[in-house]
């Protein structure tokens, strides 16, 4: 999945609530969407302002066949992947 598709899908997920937070036994405090420091609307706004150069991808640690999308904009660092129709957030922080 490329930049435009990922951007569209993650904004949709944030709008309709079809997302979850990926964890490993603890609540990651660097996921400020999970801890309620930022709202889905605020995250959607940041991603909406992203262009292709704000986006990169990497294989998921622990399951390298899954592609992780990283959006960096105005010091924000937003990291997620997709499983079927669900967006799984790993990090959302400054």
């Amino acid at each position, binding site marked *: 999945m490329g930049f435009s598709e990922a951007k569209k899908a993650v904004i949709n997920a944030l709008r309709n609530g079809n997302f*979850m937070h990926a*964890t*490993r036994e603890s*609540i990651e*405090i660097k996921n400020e969407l*999970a801890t309620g420091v930022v709202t889905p609307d605020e995250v959607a706004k940041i991603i909406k302002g992203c262009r292709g150069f704000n986006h990169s991808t990497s294989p998921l640690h*622990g*399951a390298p066949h899954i592609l992780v999308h990283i959006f960096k904009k105005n010091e924000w660092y937003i990291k997620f*992947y997709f499983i079927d129709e669900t967006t799984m957030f790993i990090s959302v922080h400054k």
Partner: protein
Amino acid sequence: MKLYSPGDTGKAVCEDCGDIVSMTFQYRDVPFSDGSGLAHNILVGVCDSCDSVIAIPPQSTPAIKAARKVAAKSIEAKVPSLYIEALDLASYRISPSLPREFKNKLVMYFVHQCATDEKMAKAVSRKLEAKKQTFEKSIAPHVLKRFSMKVSPDMAADFDKAMDMTNLNKTSLIKSVVLQINDDIIRPNRPKKMEELKHFAAASAG
């Protein structure tokens, strides 16, 4: 938007199993990654193969936000900047690669000793009167800096107990602990507690 109930199933990546796995939603107590306490009884996705907590649905966020507020208590004091520099130097001596936040853990390590060891509490309670002169009179004027740390409720209770045991107020306890750290870690050529502290630093970094 979807509201999940306990017993519902879904799919997520389990890093321990190294793949996409099926999961079942359950209520669990889940700790915060910075060790500052727990969110009690939140709905989470649990890996069907290894029982790890692998996903959190958005409906658990309000409970997490509330727990985070309770979990992270703040201890703050204004101290002459030399105290902060002493803590940075002590951390650096334990290991040059430690993050600056380690100094808070170092302070709590000594605070815990004051709360649990009467000898230590007594030694620390006498530090300020004896050593304040050299620490606070040597350079004038003093630049005051804010010392601030987020602690778990357990650590906050430790801090209260240490204030009790040493009969010091918050700012004096922090200062006295720094003076103890100065005597134990900074001044000796071969600090006695070094092995123990290197261990503690390695354990708290993970």
